[in-house]
């Protein structure tokens, strides 16, 4: 075991896989010599050479398109899109190509590919460095979507993603790279070195895709969260004193509905939180699934706490970000409903 930030854990996962499997290649904008703008690939080029870790032209369509070609050849590309907000030029390649190679060729061609992207807000990045586009991926048949919330999960899930036979979108909440963040932006940052989930096993270890984690047990209400909102939800539960059970989904597709349903059947209430905009967000899918599988156990309407349906603003970051006060209010309302 070693103490790691989320950046180090992600790098370590790629390092472990590049050492074990020479089919694993890593590339993207500023990823090679410099090691990525968030330093997630630092040192990999020196260690594995320029043909296994390299800089690309600024072309997200090019990065994903070539990665699909490599994956179909038999390599295991793990590519980086510098910010999730920059993935749109690659969207056609992701949706029409990566997601469908297996299906449309009846398994003749496959696409074992990981696309990593920093996601989410909390860094005053404005509309082009703050978005949470997970629902644009979960809506697409053929893609898996992973959102880790701590170094331990990040490493185990990224190794699983690289070993997965299908394309995986790996969204890294950038506000969590250096420490957990509960939405209290005016308080000092807690580094991962002071958090138990900053303790990461060395070498090869996997966490299966599709397994949620109950991060806080409780009986009054179930909170479904992922990424940064896992910590916001914990702060909200502590501050309101509500006996909330908080589930970190970790993987959106495939989704661990079993763990979710078991919890909601126990608590009878459910609050869904995410940073992404409300309308047609992944929360809508969760709410629908919960009512389908737990309707007769529900004692209150399912509530969603999300980013507003506006582009992500710069100055009004904390008015936009669904912080602990908003989540706390939803917990109180749901428990009292």
């Amino acid at each position: 075991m070693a103490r790691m930030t989320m950046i180090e854990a992600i790098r370590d996962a790629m390092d472990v896989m590049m050492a074990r499997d020479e089919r694993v290649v890593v590339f993207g904008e500023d990823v090679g010599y410099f090691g990525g703008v968030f330093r997630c690939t630092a040192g990999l080029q020196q260690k594995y050479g320029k043909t296994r870790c390299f800089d690309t032209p600024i072309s997200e369509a090019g990065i994903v398109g070539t990665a699909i070609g490599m994956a179909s050849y038999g390599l295991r590309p793990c590519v980086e899109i510098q910010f999730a907000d920059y993935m749109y030029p690659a969207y056609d390649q992701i949706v029409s190509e990566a997601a469908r190679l297996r299906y449309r060729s009846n398994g003749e061609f496959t696409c074992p590919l990981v696309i990593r992207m920093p996601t989410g807000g909390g860094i005053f990045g404005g509309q082009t460095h703050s978005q949470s586009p997970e629902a644009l991926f979960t809506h697409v048949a053929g893609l898996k979507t992973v959102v880790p919330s701590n170094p331990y999960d990040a490493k185990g899930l990224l190794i699983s993603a690289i070993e997965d036979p299908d394309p995986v979108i790996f969204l890294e909440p950038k506000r969590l790279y250096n420490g957990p963040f509960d939405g209290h932006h005016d308080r000092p940052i807690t580094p991962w070195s002071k958090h138990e989930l900053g303790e990461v096993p060395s070498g090869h270890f996997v966490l299966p895709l599709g397994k949620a984690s109950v991060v806080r047990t409780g009986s009054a209400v179930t909170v479904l969260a992922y990424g940064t909102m896992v910590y916001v939800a914990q702060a909200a539960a502590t501050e309101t004193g509500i006996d909330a059970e908080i589930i970190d989904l970790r993987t959106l597709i495939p989704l661990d509905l079993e763990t979710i349903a078991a919890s909601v059947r126990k608590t009878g209430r459910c609050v869904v939180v995410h940073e992404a905009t409300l309308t047609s967000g992944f929360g809508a899918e969760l709410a629908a699934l919960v009512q389908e599988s737990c309707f007769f156990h529900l004692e209150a309407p399912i509530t969603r706490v999300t980013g507003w349906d506006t582009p992500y603003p710069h100055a009004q970051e904390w008015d936009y970000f669904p912080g602990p006060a908003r989540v706390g209010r939803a917990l109180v309302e749901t428990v009292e409903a």
Partner: protein
Amino acid sequence: MSSQELRKVMSEPEPLSLHVPEPAVRPGGNPDFSNVKIPRAGAVPRPEIDVDPETIRELAFSIIRVLNRNGEAVGPWAGLLSDEELIEGMRHMMTLRTFDARMLIAQRQGKTSFYMQHLGEEAISCAFRKALSPGDMNFPTYRQAGLLIAGGYSMVDMMCQVYSNSRDPLKGRQLPVMYASKEHGFFTISGNLATQYVQAVGWAMASAISKDTKIAAAWIGDGSTAESDFHAALVFASTYKAPVVLNIVNNQWAISTFQGIARGGSGTFAARGLGFGIPSLRVDGNDYLAVHAAAKWAIERARRNLGPTLIEYVTYRVGAHSTSDDPSAYRPKTESDAWPLGDPIIRLKNHLIVKGVWSEERHKQTEAEILDTVIAAQKEAESYGTLHAGGKPSARDMFDRVYAEMPPHLRRQRQQAGV
């Protein structure tokens, strides 16, 4: 090679290997720009504006330069600007540099989240702006604020945008430096790369459809020419002969990635235009006179319905990509000192001194006077607040202008937010 060896090669190919380009020098090495071929000033001919593009292909591989080492303006691209206009250009570049220096300090003081400076690239946007006419539209990137400075846009408004304060014309919605002003021919900056290059072509096509006389200017960096939108822009501009100037600012570095990664096997970025039949110029981006002359030529072609021109400005990004970047991690610290095209302000200063209309003393006085003006603007802007202190845009502003008319679902959300 013996015939036996040859047969072996023919029948059993050697394993392939992947080519990954590398810059000439990395940190710790000695800066080396010997690969940048610099023709002497005045050497490149100035064609007629209705020239057949096929006959000027070599202009995409040379560099149009006006100012020589002695500070003289020479050759067929010289002589377009009066002394007064040159002094005005000097003041614009100095103002932009001072503005940048003050905003960089303000960012470090925590008065805003982020900033991007122009150091070394001031001539390009400042000189280009002077070749445009009112009503023309730029689709800029984040490093063309000289278009605003040289166009007379209010520095206080610019700073209020940078500070996201109560007087921010964009209501705090955008990252610092992502200005927008229709009146000043400055399209709203996206922040995503290359997306607006093709929009400039569309704007220009609209001007032609509408039988207007306005032209558009597209802007992109060397790195972003790799995006598909760049290539879409070139094909549309070429097909419809859109009245647009397609500018590429080649400042050698796309964050940590040297220009060779985006350029690939092509000799120059200007050469990208040739395959589309677009007249393509390559210009000394640190030479105010050369930038202005090339811009004027291209703008004139567009205005006379002769179609698009592509211009590559050869320059160097002296500063960091942004306040989030540290270039010492990927290039030698002294690389900017070795850049063979010098500094645009010093070069124009030397020219003005040679012409006898400027002096070191006057330069210093002007510097001090500009600093006073910029500081006064900054004081005023800060009186309206900075990112984390004083006046700021309201949370209500966040919900406005998503649509022309606020739909019911957003109205409900605004009520929920209690603003």
